[in-house]
């Protein structure tokens, strides 16, 4: 078959094939339930006699398999449940409807590593280069999402301090705004800091998908370097999940999470968290200065951080109906969250702040509609819309200069702030709305067409009651991002070869007030301007499964990051506009291998990926006298490899090890100096060699039936890397981010089928001095105890 037919007429072609297949077949229909007659979604049903014949149950636990007539064995499996085998006869005289009831397997339920084809495993086997972390086991541990994601190969998260501190997420050499975050497929980029990854306890989520470089269309955003999708609980059971943990630095975290389904299909869901920490850990090498600011040469260790407390809270309530004729799911939800973050110091920790803090609060209302099995069970539609408001405030009203030892002096210039040049009560308000529509149309058993549209609109307005001068965003900035995606998924060669082809359209419209510095009349000085950008991205992801033990995958994408409003328009103050700014652009490619083997009681898996990120037009800020402006600067190339080995023995002992090496260069630098040694220079201040290791043991049925004691040790390593340059400066004088090597230990005990859980965690157990950013010391040894009560029907 020619490629031409493939591309142009595939729709008709597959429709035709589909009809042919349908005509000769009979169907087995049924439902998969648990012991309590709750439907099980995504259970796998296989016809053992027919190779590659199988399906998964839908949202209502229902499934349909088409077979020729005959006698077959159906194997039904789902993570956490024992496999179910059933013989069935199919002929043309009757429709076969069966009910399959799965028995819970407590042994399996309590072990995240040993699993059947969970959703996570299925996602992993997709053609995209994706990592999936299931949090089932981690729910009992005192950890936020960031702490979990940092164990993924290729991912590095640099945290500026304790709970709630700023972080930079990087993946395969791209970082910051180049990576986009989602929750259940909805972009989080315009949500406030109280809803960012460092707040969410693992208890609230089901799993996390991390897409490297190539992002499927259902995550609609201008992700240059990949995307992270946090998936909250999607299971349909009634439960109540309460947790509380307490630990070092006066840290307290609590979650309440639950949902209820009535017989008539009414549902209420609640998800909430509360975080608090003083973050008053001790740091070293604090300079002692005299009254005039002279360095005395004395350095103090074990100095306690005193202005670094953080608290955040969130509550989401969703209510609606499920399984109605008009909708599979129709929910309305309200989310509200807030945080307060004291700032201990600027980039240089030697100059502490004593009063400055930031605040964020968010309120958001949303509606979700989902309906599958329309148009002869081929069409599935998901719609989402939300409207929200996000307020951010910087409170910097002190002209005091604090020192690390509890003292301060009043500055001569009382108009100065701690953090900013002038005292500030700067506040900006973001009005946001998001619309997301996802349509999935099954062309045949082997091909699907998907369409996704995401609109992400933000209007930012700034004010500052502490300033009588003009403030940033005094006139609103509007940024309206529209991302369209179309993809075609096909499965060939007995579903061994799976491919997705996709195109994405990026449309951005932004609007702002631009200032003409040369006009003195206030009325003429400011003019409204518009900026429109359109870009077309495309790519593919393909995987071939040689056997159950070996799979190869490759993916490619041409993608963009569209400049944000303030990058194009400036902030109306010293940050000037650059309407000619081009989007960041990148060609991303991955080639991955998945290997699995089972030898007696040993289960081994090996997952590796090599990657290329050929990026252009990185946007960076440059100064021009007192002003600064965003420019397109570097063209970079990131190449590297990452790999992970996991081994499980007797479903009890597990070991896993992963490592990442990456080389990121600036393709442009050095041309002007005519020096070869500066050309293709490595970009500094990015980790290039890092890895994780963990080992653990699970003891089951120890004191009582269906209890579990688990013990584990994990280590985190980042090789030393320079702050400024790999080649410039005397190697002994170069600033370095020193080697980081820290270890965590965990001990957990669950009993009564996982209803009661207690865990003890020691982070940085060897009390290593760890610097994630230059000069900014991370917390030393810390202990946490977590109690969790999980009740389900």
């Amino acid at each position, binding site marked *: 078959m020619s490629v031409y037919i493939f591309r142009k007429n595939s729709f008709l072609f597959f429709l035709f094939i589909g009809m042919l297949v349908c005509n000769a077949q009979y169907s087995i229909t049924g439902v998969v339930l648990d012991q309590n007659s709750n439907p099980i979604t995504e259970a796998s049903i296989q016809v053992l006699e027919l190779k590659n014949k199988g399906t998964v149950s839908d949202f209502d636990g229902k499934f349909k398999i088409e077979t020729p007539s005959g006698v077959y064995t159906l194997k039904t499996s789902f993570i956490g449940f024992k496999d179910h085998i059933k013989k069935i006869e199919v002929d043309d005289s009757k429709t076969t409807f069966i009910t399959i009831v799965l028995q819970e397997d407590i042994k399996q339920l309590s072990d995240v590593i040993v699993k059947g084809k969970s959703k996570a495993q299925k996602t992993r086997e997709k053609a995209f280069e994706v990592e999936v972390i299931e949090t089932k086991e981690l729910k009992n541990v005192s950890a936020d999402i960031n702490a979990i994601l940092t164990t993924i190969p290729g991912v590095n998260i640099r945290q500026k301090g304790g709970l709630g501190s700023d972080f930079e997420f990087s993946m395969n050499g791209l970082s910051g705004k180049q990576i986009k975050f989602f929750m259940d497929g909805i972009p989080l980029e315009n949500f406030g800091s109280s809803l960012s990854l460092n707040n969410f306890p693992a208890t609230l989520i089901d799993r996390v998908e991390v897409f490297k470089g190539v992002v499927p269309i259902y995550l609609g955003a201008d992700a240059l370097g990949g995307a992270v999708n946090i998936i909250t609980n999607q299971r349909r059971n009634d439960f109540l999940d309460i947790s509380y943990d307490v630990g070092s630095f006066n840290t307290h975290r609590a979650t309440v999470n639950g949902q209820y389904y009535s017989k008539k299909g009414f549902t209420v869901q609640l998800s909430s968290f509360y975080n608090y920490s003083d973050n008053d850990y001790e740091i070293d090498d604090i300079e002692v200065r005299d009254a005039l600011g002279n360095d005395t040469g004395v350095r103090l260790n074990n100095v306690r951080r005193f202005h670094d407390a953080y608290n955040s809270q969130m509550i989401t309530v969703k209510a609606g109906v499920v399984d109605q004729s008009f909708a599979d799911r129709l929910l309305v939800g309200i989310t509200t969250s807030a945080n307060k973050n004291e700032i201990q110091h600027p980039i240089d920790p030697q100059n502490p702040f004593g009063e400055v803090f930031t605040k964020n609060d968010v309120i958001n209302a949303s509606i979700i509609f989902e309906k599958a099995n329309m148009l002869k069970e081929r069409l599935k539609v998901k719609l989402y819309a939300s409207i929200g408001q996000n307020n951010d405030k910087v409170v910097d009203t002190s002209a005091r200069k604090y020192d690390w030892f509890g003292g301060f002096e009043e*500055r001569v*210039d009382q108009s100065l702030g701690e953090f900013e040049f002038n005292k500030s009560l700067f506040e900006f308000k973001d009005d946001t709305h998001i619309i997301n529509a996802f349509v999935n149309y099954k062309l045949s058993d082997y091909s699907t067409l998907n369409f996704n549209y995401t609109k992400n609109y933000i209007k930012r307005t700034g004010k500052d*009651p502490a300033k009588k001068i003009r403030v940033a965003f005094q006139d609103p900035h509007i940024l309206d991002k529209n991302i369209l995606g179309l993809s075609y998924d096909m499965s060939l060669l007995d579903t061994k070869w799976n491919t997705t082809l996709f195109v994405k359209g990026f449309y951005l419209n932004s609007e702002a007030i631009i200032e003409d510095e040369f006009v003195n009349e206030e009325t003429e000085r400011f003019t409204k301007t518009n900026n429109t950008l359109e870009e077309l991205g495309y790519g593919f992801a393909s995987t071939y499964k040689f056997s159950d033990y070996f799979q190869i995958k490759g993916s490619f994408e041409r993608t963009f990051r569209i400049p944000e409003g303030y990058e194009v328009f400036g902030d109306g103050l010293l940050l000037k506009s650059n309407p000619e700014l081009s989007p960041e652009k990148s060609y991303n490619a991955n080639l991955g291998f998945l290997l699995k083997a089972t030898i007696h009681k040993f289960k081994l898996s090996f997952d590796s990926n090599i990657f290329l990120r050929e990026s252009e037009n990185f946007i960076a800020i440059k100064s021009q006298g007192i002003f600064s402006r965003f420019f397109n600067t570097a063209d970079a190339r990131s190449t590297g490899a990452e790999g992970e080995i996991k081994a499980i023995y007797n479903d009890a002992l597990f070991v896993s090890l992963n490592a990442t090496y990456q080389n990121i260069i600036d393709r442009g630098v050095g041309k002007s100096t005519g020096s070869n040694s500066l050309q293709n220079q490595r970009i500094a201040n990015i980790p290039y060699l890092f890895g994780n290791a963990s080992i653990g043991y699970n003891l089951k049925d120890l004191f009582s039936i269906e209890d579990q004691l688990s013990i584990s040790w994990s280590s985190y390593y980042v090789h030393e890397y320079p702050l400024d340059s790999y080649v410039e400066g005397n190697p002994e004088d170069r600033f370095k981010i020193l080697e980081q090597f820290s270890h965590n230990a965990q001990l957990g005990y669950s009993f009564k089928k996982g209803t009661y859980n207690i865990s003890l965690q020691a982070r940085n157990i060897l009390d290593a001095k760890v610097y994630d950013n230059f000069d900014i010391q991370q917390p030393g040894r810390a202990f946490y105890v977590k109690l969790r009560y999980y009740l389900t029907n």
Partner: protein
Amino acid sequence: MKIINTIKYLLFCSIITIGTISCSSDDNEAITPSKPKPEPESKSISKYVVGFQATPVGQAAAVDYILELPSLESLTTGEISVKGQGIPLKGWRFFHSVKNTVFTAGYSKDDKCIAYQLDEKGKLKEKANFSFASTLDNYAAIDDKTLLAVELSAALADPKATSVPDRSFYVVDAETGAVKKIETHPIDSSMGDGTKTNPAYIPWVTGMVLRDGKLFISYHKLFPDGKYVPVGVNKAYVAVLKYPEFKLEKLIEDDRTSSIGINGHSTGIEKTENGDIYSFSSSSNTAAVTGATKPSGILRIKNGSSEFDKDYFFDVEKAANGGKLFWMDYVGNGKAVGRIVLDDTLGAWGVFKEQGSFFKLVILDLVNKTITDVQGVPAHANRYTSPMFVEGGKAYLSSRVGEAIGKNGENADTGETHVYIVDPETAKATKGAKVQGLALKGIFKITN
């Protein structure tokens, strides 16, 4: 079972470790560096030291280095690079020297000023450092032993403010690198009455000279809205303070030219060998002296006087080969080197860029009021610079030649920076060492 045993062992070890480490003291422990033993006097060594601004890599800002060079030849021939050498510094910086000490102060990202000297072995070493409250914005070596640095703030944002805050002067001992005292003074500030004719302003210092116990300070008056827009720009202003008392003696002004100096430069006023003080006024819009209508020119305060010399005015714009000055620095023998703006329509701050054909280099004869174009230096860029380095009557300066960088980063690779050696007598320049970076922010010679 071997693995399980290993784990048991590991756990056992870790528990012991926890126990041991937890017992360690939490008290603050002080580490005082031991004082180096004095070594016998050796022959004095001189070296050239440069403030080197490297080419930025990736999305990072350009990094500044301080680099020692063994001889004058390092400046006149070959290449100057920080590959494998030089001490990296934090953030964007200023470089200034007083006799045998080079000071480098951070701007916004680092609030420390570090003093470098040559040690007994002739190696460049940090002598001392001090921190300051916000930013040090102007500097002067007021004598061989003292660095004077002043903190300025360009906004009076607080709606409740009833007066303009004072400026802070840091008096630094150049031999020890330590701050001796911090003096505060308003220089010349006003809350105004809110009208256009009498606006509020704060002083922005552009040069400081000490002569006979008097500190002459040239300044711009800035409207305090944080935007660095000058008010009353069609006058030159100098404040005369008693030193070391920091008592105002008088404020003098002159309406033949515009406000003196350029934001970020420290050579607005300078003293010559005979004690005369010369100042330059730019009047250039693109050099951020916005709204000036008076000609760019040079004024004089004669030795012994503390008034502008009524009989002296050098109209730089009217003179042959003239134009609007962006920068001027005195070489000696009544001559100065200057940079003249080639195109004044680039908008405020338009020439404060790393690269572009913004200036021509000229020799200004302050006595005869003549201007000669310097041969051998193409149109170039150089935004901030330390006072010029002069040896053997010749001036050494760094200039970047290349087309202006476009908004999408175009032309960035066309620029080249060289040291140019300028002979003020012949107005000829020779191209010296190539700089494998953006600029040399300063060139100094120091002796141990």
